[in-house]
């Protein structure tokens, strides 16, 4: 049985696509069969972050409309053969997706893949609802910032009431907190909510903490998910997330600021 995991947040721009790409690639590198689905109909970004934008021929909506088969639309990752991407359409009608046709696509994918990662659009409307509806697990991506935390809580409400699991009275969606763009220095200075603060408020288990990192922009510039940058702190933090998803107990890293010398502290940097 495939694990269907939605990467969701409510608030936009918090790092869902970055996280979907890194986690999807990380799971595939561990030998699992993974498909990444871009649910952000109309925007389409995952292909860019994955570096396969020039290979998009057909998309999710083409498959839904029967204009292409799944195999025609799926793009095989050039780095890891066990990873595929199902791109979002760029221009089409957002309402193309509904529970029934999305369910069919997921069922079909579930026959082949071990992990189905759904990159959700922002918001709490129909698009985000579609992305989370069939999920078994949710990675609630949150920035340590008031509006993001509040929106994450709303998404938790939706997971608990609007998902298939909720509607059918099944075991609830397994929720994971992924705190991204974390800046230990600012936390220590009292300017940013800490991991503990966010955990206290949302009260769901912590899956990972990804530090604010320049490596993320570099990675997106290159179309190479940041988990491939094994030297970077963000890359390492995503690797830990993958290991935890696979059941390992991994200690949390990058939670405290690097201690700088007095010299660089006084003269900036």
């Amino acid at each position, binding site marked *: 049985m495939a694990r269907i995991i939605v990467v969701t947040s409510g608030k936009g721009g918090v790092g869902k696509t970055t996280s979907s790409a890194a986690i999807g690639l990380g799971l595939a590198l561990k030998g699992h069969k993974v498909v990444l689905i871009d649910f952000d109909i109309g925007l389409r970004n995952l292909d860019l972050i994955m570096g396969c934008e020039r290979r998009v021929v057909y998309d999710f909506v083409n498959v839904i409309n029967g204009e292409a088969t799944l195999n025609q639309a799926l793009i095989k990752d050039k780095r890891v053969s066990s990873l595929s991407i199902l791109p979002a359409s760029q221009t089409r009608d957002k*309402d193309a997706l*509904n*529970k029934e046709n999305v369910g069919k696509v997921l069922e079909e994918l579930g026959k082949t893949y071990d992990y189905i990662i759904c990159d959700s659009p922002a918001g709490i409307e*129909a698009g985000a609802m579609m992305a989370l509806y069939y999920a078994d697990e949710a990675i609630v991506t949150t920035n340590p*910032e*008031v509006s993001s*935390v*509040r929106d994450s*809580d*709303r998404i938790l*409400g939706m997971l608990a*009431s609007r998902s298939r699991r909720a509607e059918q009275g099944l075991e609830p969606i397994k929720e994971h907190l992924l705190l991204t763009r974390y800046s230990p220095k600012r*936390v220590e*200075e*009292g*300017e*940013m*909510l*800490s991991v503990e*603060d966010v955990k*206290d*408020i*949302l009260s769901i288990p912590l899956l990972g903490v990804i530090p604010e990192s320049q490596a993320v922009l570099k990675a997106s510039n290159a179309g190479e998910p940041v988990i491939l940058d094994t030297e970077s702190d963000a890359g390492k933090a995503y690797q830990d997330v993958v290991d935890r998803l696979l059941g390992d107990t991994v200690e949390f890293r990058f939670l405290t600021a690097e201690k700088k010398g007095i010299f660089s*502290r*006084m*003269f*900036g*940097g």
Partner: protein
Amino acid sequence: MALLDYFLRKKEKQVTTASKAKERLQIIVAHERNNRNKQPDYLPQLTEDILVVLRKYIHVSDESFSINLDNKDGDLNVLELNIELHDEPTSTD
């Protein structure tokens, strides 16, 4: 500037904006959760019933229909129905 910041920051430490943020979040999140959980037991059945009636007359997909019972600060409860109408003709069978 950096030198000045360094000394100023030491002083400001006591007034942390993060703790203020946490406090505000705890209040608003508790409030919103409370509202969410207040949905009465009859709401799912009411939703089903309303849909059955609506579908006698118009085409309504699950996605174009939403129902919400909101508690607007205090004793005012608002039952909100949202039905998106598409102009396809009705299919009455």
